[in-house]
């Protein structure tokens, strides 16, 4: 296809506002807990108040006696289900024994769901939940990572290992090289637990359609994942379970796995043969997955020129007693920096908590904080500008895989961000810059994140009105997927965006993985390209069949799709509209369903990643230690940017998250009680407006001809990865203090 003439109408590359924005800001968009359903029952979950042990007895008599209470479900009276682990396994399940709600009397962690009260209204269900008494026998538990580092072990392998490989084997002889090196740094970093806390609470509304049929409105990042989960567990036919999630109020990873409210809601609906809704409250949002706390030990050495010679990264992170949640941490440095002697090890510490889970830039944001702070320390040891140290160790290759990247514009990120930031104004000595009562610090760090692509299937069609409809099960978790997919489809068919109807968030539609891994634009976007190509073929073929068609003899590349027509390149006045083609087709839709998938054979020779560079200015009060991130610039190299506006929003959001991770966010475990204590948004601190000042985003040009048909990577996570280290490094530069943990509290700078 020749594009020259179409280009002015192109939407790809334009900052298009979110198509569903108005629905969201006017409250018109409906979320899982908001569907009006007749004869609805309301479920309220009761959670364990002990951390480990057994439920000896449950007394529900007082609760059941309350007006409007229909049922109390627990392990005592749950429906009989398939109890094979495999049937509970979701697409994101780590190796181990999947958690099965209401399985038996055993308590595995504090906050475990142990009963569901179902009542005619939410308030009564919630009240009745307080009237149930549980008798427990308690057992000793372990919830403290630090106290249990000795029991660490390597992770079991399973399905999930494909996307999250263990660290590569050692190279060279690290210990020897490190011992002999003169310039070296040894660090230990600790990170706290974080909970995803999307603003939309986890909720499920199950419509009981009869005959083993369910329609489920669920808060999830993956409609098909949850459809399969429900069907497998409850022995229903796949086609009889429909999961819908047209709007998702944030996910950040928490919706990659089905959460327990889905299970409980469906169980209640089937048991009572009624429509049921279960909504978790904010406190209960802390009763499942989270980013695991970690302890990381690093030893890096360079030669006198600053070239890395030896890198050792050891990570120990929390997992549950029943599943081995593994996110790559120890292996990242070698994807950035070459060194001949490497030793990467990663282990898990099983504790009496729920299984951790992917949370925005899982592993990467944890690892790069430690790596890039260690690099900063090396720069000081070498008396070298931290940026220069990065450039000295720069490579276009992926040293860990010994393959080239499909594209890597990280150098441009460094240089463009440094210039925009004004890095050259930095005086290297700590505590050398100030402004009134404040010490000023500049810090920088590198980010790297995976560029995944999953198989995705798109149905695309042109209807009688000449418009295009596309179907795909993908969700839009607030990322802009809906808008971006519409843009891609519009351009591929030469239609205005108004004439493209992308339908999504529904398990009935052709396959998509859950929205995650910053992979949706590459996955469903590529599937749209593939389907659109086929659709163009079919349209042209039909056009050729038309009486006296001027297209009879033309090849695919001799026409242009433009404004809902096919036009001859040689004579653009010769056109046939999609409407005419469909009319000729007796009004019948022309459609195609195609799979987009990564070209594995070709890609085998390459590594794939997005990159970023973050530059941060902080002000730290000289007396009081209070920290303000006054400016931050993040440059991102992530292939082609389909929509600079929604993409920028993703980077802004992740930069804010980076500030949050560096300075605010942490779920506090009381180790004696074995439970989290700050389980509300008043005490679980994320930044507010006053904490966020000037943020700038740059997209470095990165033409990737190899990675996929669109040349896209993903932007959902990369913006977070470099920020925490850049902030930590800026704080060091301002104060001369290295804080070896996150979050950094201001009193540590007193």
């Amino acid at each position, binding site marked *: 296809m020749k594009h020259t003439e179409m280009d002015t109408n192109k939407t790809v590359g334009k900052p298009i506002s979110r198509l569903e924005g108005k629905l969201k800001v006017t409250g018109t968009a409906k979320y899982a807990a908001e569907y009006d359903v007749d004869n609805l029952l309301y479920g309220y979950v009761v959670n364990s108040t002990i951390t480990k042990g057994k439920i000896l007895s449950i007394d529900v008599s007082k609760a059941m006696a309350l007006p409007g209470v229909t049922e109390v479900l627990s392990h005592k009276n749950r429906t009989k289900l398939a109890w094979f682990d495999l049937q509970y396994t979701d697409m994101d399940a780590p190796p181990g024994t999947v958690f099965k709600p209401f399985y038996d009397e055993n308590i595995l962690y504090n906050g475990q769901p142990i009963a569901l009260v179902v009542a005619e209204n939410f308030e009564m269900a*919630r009240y009745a939940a*307080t009237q149930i008494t549980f008798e427990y026998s308690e057992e000793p538990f372990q919830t403290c990572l630090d106290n249990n580092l000795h029991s660490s072990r390597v992770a079991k392998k399973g399905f999930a290992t494909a996307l999250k490989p263990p660290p590569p084997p050692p190279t060279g002889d690290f210990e020897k090289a490190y011992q002999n090196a003169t310039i070296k740094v040894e660090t230990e970093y600790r990170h706290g637990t974080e909970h995803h806390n999307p603003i939309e609470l986890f909720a499920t509304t199950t419509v009981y359609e009869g005959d083993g049929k369910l329609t489920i409105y669920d808060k999830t990042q993956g409609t098909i994942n949850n459809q399969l989960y429900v069907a497998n567990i409850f022995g229903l036919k796949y086609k009889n379970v429909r999961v819908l999630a047209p709007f998702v109020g944030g996910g950040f990873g928490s919706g990659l796995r089905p959460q327990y409210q889905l299970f409980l809601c469906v169980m209640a609906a089937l048991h009572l043969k009624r429509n049921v809704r279960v909504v978790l409250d904010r406190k209960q949002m802390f009763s499942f997955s989270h980013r695991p706390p970690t302890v990381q030990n690093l030893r890096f050495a360079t030669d006198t020129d600053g070239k890395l010679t030896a890198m050792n990264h050891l990570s120990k992170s929390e997992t549950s007693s029943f599943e081995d949640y593994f996110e790559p941490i120890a292996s990242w440095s070698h994807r950035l920096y070459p060194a001949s002697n490497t030793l990467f090890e990663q282990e898990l510490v099983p504790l009496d908590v729920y299984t951790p889970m992917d949370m925005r830039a899982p592993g990467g944001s944890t690892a790069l904080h430690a790596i890039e702070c260690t690099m900063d320390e090396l720069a000081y040891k070498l008396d070298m500008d931290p940026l220069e140290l990065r450039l000295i160790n720069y490579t276009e290759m992926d040293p860990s895989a010994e393959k080239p990247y499909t594209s890597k514009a990280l150098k441009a990120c460094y240089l463009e961000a440094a210039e925009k930031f004004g890095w050259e104004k930095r005086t290297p000595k700590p505590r050398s810059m100030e402004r009134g*009562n*404040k010490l000023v610090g500049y810090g920088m760090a590198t980010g790297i994140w995976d560029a995944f692509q999953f198989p995705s299937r798109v149905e695309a069609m042109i209807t009688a009105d000449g418009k295009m409809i596309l179907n795909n099960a993908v969700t839009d978790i607030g990322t802009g997927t809906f808008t971006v997919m519409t843009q891609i489809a519009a351009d591929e068919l030469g239609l205005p965006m108004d004439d493209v109807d992308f339908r999504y968030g529904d398990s009935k539609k052709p396959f998509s993985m859950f929205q995650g891994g910053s992979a949706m634009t590459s996955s469903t976007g590529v599937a749209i390209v593939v389907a659109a190509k086929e659709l163009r073929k079919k349209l042209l073929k039909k056009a050729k069949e038309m009486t006296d068609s001027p297209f009879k003899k033309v090849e695919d590349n001799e026409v242009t799709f433009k404004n809902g027509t096919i036009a001859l390149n040689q004579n653009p006045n010769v056109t046939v509209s999609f409407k005419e083609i469909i009319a000729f087709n007796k009004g019948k839709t022309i459609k195609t369903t195609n799979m987009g998938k990564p070209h594995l054979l070709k890609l085998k020779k390459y590594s794939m990643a997005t990159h970023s560079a973050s530059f941060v200015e902080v002000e730290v009060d000289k007396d009081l230690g209070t920290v303000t991130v006054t400016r931050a610039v993040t440059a991102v190299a992530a292939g082609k940017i389909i929509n600079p506006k929604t993409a920028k929003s993703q980077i802004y959001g992740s930069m804010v998250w980076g500030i949050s991770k560096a300075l605010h966010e942490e779920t*506090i475990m*009381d180790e004696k009680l074995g439970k989290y*204590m700050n389980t509300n948004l008043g005490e679980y601190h994320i930044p507010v407006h*006053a904490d966020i000042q000037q943020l700038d985003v740059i997209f470095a040009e990165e033409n990737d001809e190899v990675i996929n048909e669109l040349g896209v990577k993903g932007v959902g996570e990369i913006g977070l990865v470099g920020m925490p280290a850049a902030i930590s490094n800026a704080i060091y530069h301002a104060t001369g203090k290295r804080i070896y943990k996150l979050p950094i509290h201001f*009193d540590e700078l*007193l």
Partner: protein
Amino acid sequence: MNNFEYKQATDTKDAIDLLSHSPEAAFVAGGTNIIDLWKYNLTNPSSLIDINHLHENAEISMLENGKTRLGAAVKNADTAYHPLIGQKYPLLSKAILAGASAQIRNMASNGGNLLQRTRCYYFYDPDVPCNKRNPGSGCPAKAGYNRIHAILGTSEACIAVFPSDMCIALAALEATVNISGPNGERNIPFSQFHRLPGDRPDLDNTLEPGEIITSIDLPEEGFADNYSYLKLRDRHSYAFALVSVATALKLNGNIIESARIALGGVAHKPWRNVEAEEFLKNKEANAENFSAAADIILRDAKGFGYNDFKIALSRKAIIRNGLMALNPTSQLPGAQPSA
């Protein structure tokens, strides 16, 4: 949250009557605290008496003796933005505006602010012991995660902190709390309104059951020339104080004629130390003297591990805020440290 009856009181007397007829009842003003406590199952009143419509308590007025009266039903935001308060008692405005969020301040009442309960994590979790919530059950905060807890005036039983910002300014300004009850009216000086936990941490203050706060009186002296409120916390807005300081000075040149220093975030009540304030009298207003005053205030301060930093932080905050009071325009929104 249990089912409950809802009643609207028409005037103060009606409110007192309604409460006296139903001992399990509770007043609701802005509801920003009691509704939360209720949803967390920390309280379960049988009926809710709405006191938002007591017109006699809904105004801010200048009294004949030069005092200013803040109606208990006036919203925190309306109080902070009231011209009289802004001009005569800017310390109070600043403190209120450093608290909570705009939305909460729009709802929160002056009476309710005085009676808000601690934010101690352990108090807020009905499934763990807490002497304040469940006397005699124990205090896991002492050996637990006590970053937000008290360093002054603690007891064996309780190390919780009274979380208000507004009340720190009211303490510094030496306000009086006006109260009505079944036995008539009385008033309590601010320093005697909130109490230390001792062996009765379940009691936050000296209000008797059945009583209602009708208003708060501010003395004529508002310290409008030299004052400052400084609030230190884990984010720049919408977080409770780890340490806050209200400083009010009467200066003659650079010599302190009288000083008031009240600390928040460090004790079970707004913390004042008369000895330190006396010490500052007739001294030069400078860092050295504020530091010496801080030494006096913090002499008996004691940390419990995670909150040890509050001692050093309080000292530095007292000094900085003293200096900020010399130049009140150096105050920043959200009571952040001066630039």
